[in-house]
């Protein structure tokens, strides 16, 4: 799944990577709100291109493009559906907008959401993320569970590959048969995978206990997140962005391309 490629963190250093993850999350949240507030194509285009400076500064163009390419399938799907339903029942499309433009805007909104989350995950290390959660007073149990889950995804992926190989070596053909048969073909892969995941989690719990998990109620950290100049700048940008989109939403009439070209 290439769309997940766009969410895998790689250890590099850039001004964006060094930003406080809480601030980056605030920015992503503002982008999210902005994208959901609008279904007008011009605004969504602006939001889409607003991310590009971030991508360039963090030099994550390749991974970012890959995540967009991965998301393209669903975006196309959204586009086709919106065009289809836009033309058969014009009620869903606001007045003065062609169904085509509306469908395009809907797909673009999806891409804006994907790209902003992808920028967040591409530039935030799992350690940073758990630090941010912890310092936002999320109980450490939850933080730990979250980071462990993220940490074990590649391990499980590798394990499922080995299991598939082992079962193929016993003559299992995953791609054979009708739909129901194919689903059932995965039982010999899923059972060993689940059993080993449970076994591993029990072992992990024992290892944690033997290393004194939960011994002290108040934990301290080697690294402490501190807001620096760059962080405050992004906070201000985010707030300005939020104020602007609210203002535009309630006080400015955004013309659609359909209307602009009709004149």
């Amino acid at each position, binding site marked *: 799944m290439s769309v997940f490629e766009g969410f895998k963190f790689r250890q590099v250093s850039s001004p964006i990577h060094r930003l406080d993850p809480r601030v980056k999350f605030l920015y992503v949240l503002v982008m999210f709100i902005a994208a959901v507030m609008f279904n007008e194509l011009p605004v969504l285009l602006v939001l889409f291109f607003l991310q590009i400076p971030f991508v360039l500064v963090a030099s994550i163009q390749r991974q970012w493009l890959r995540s967009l390419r991965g998301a393209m399938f669903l975006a196309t799907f959204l586009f086709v559906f919106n065009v289809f339903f836009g033309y058969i029942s014009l009620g869903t499309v606001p007045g003065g907008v062609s169904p085509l433009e509306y469908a395009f805007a809907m797909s673009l909104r999806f891409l804006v959401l994907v790209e902003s989350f992808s920028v967040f995950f591409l530039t935030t290390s799992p350690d940073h993320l758990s630090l941010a959660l912890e310092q936002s007073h999320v109980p450490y149990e939850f933080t730990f569970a979250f980071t462990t889950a993220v940490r074990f995804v590649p391990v499980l992926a590798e394990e499922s590959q080995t299991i598939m*190989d082992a079962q193929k070596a016993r003559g299992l053909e995953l791609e054979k048969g009708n739909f129901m048969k194919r689903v059932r073909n995965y039982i010999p892969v899923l059972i*060993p995978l689940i*059993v080993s995941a449970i076994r591993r989690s029990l072992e992990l719990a024992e290892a944690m206990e033997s290393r004194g998990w939960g011994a002290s109620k108040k934990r301290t950290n080697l690294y402490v997140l501190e807001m620096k100049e760059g962080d405050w700048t992004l906070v201000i940008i985010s707030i300005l962005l939020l104020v602007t989109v609210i203002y535009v939403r309630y006080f400015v009439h955004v013309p659609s391309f359909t209307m602009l070209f009709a004149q």
Partner: protein
Amino acid sequence: MIEVKDVYFTYPTGVEALKDVSLSIRNGEFLAIMGQNGAGKTTLVKQFNGLLKPTKGEVLVDGVSTRDISVAQLARKVGFVFQNPDHQLFSETVEEEIAFGLRNFGFKESTLKRRVTWALNLLGLAEYRKTSPFMLSGGERKRVALASVLAWNPKVVILDEPTIGQDHRQKEILRQFIVQLNAQGKTVVIVTHDVEFVAECSPRVVLMTQGQIVADGDAKRILTNSDIALRASIVPPQITQIFLDLADLGLPTDIIDVSEAKKTLLEYLEGDNT
């Protein structure tokens, strides 16, 4: 007959695991592939049943390229027992586990029953017929995994790290079992870095380092050559080390077997007395 011809293999991650490997395994041969971790041993044997296909070059099993045939078809001929039995056990009973491969290959129900019983007896698992494989001990699970492959009677049996996590007694049973399989005309390939185990089995040894074969010959020649062994990060068997240290007494240095060592030493000592 398995022929590996100038095979290169690169994983999608970009790791070049095999570099120009050529190897030919005759029917009925007993082969041990040795080398340190990451040398490409498992990658090489996964080519034999088509789980991995060469990036360049080709692998022929009985004259047919692994590219032209499915893994399932190859698996009928080339049985592969994975290192960790927990990666394949999933059935409710041991009996069902062993029948899984047979069902995949389309054996008739009557033949299937007979073969399951045969495989259960072969590995001394008859009493666990109706037991869940998850309730068995590690060594027993390993035996179930082996039985589930041997059940369809493949011509070639590949065992990936068969001795890992086995105690001395289990290893000895395993060794006798492998030798017996080989004596019945099966081609046996084991992947291991257990030098002592290989010394006791005395098969043909193929040594690998960094994706290449660095030595190929019988166990006696390879394991007693400390230069070759060193290149593949393998320590000669303990008994060989003793004889290498005693070389200045005029004793032979190509000893890998304990009983042979005893005989040689006794002869030497008797000769010394007269």
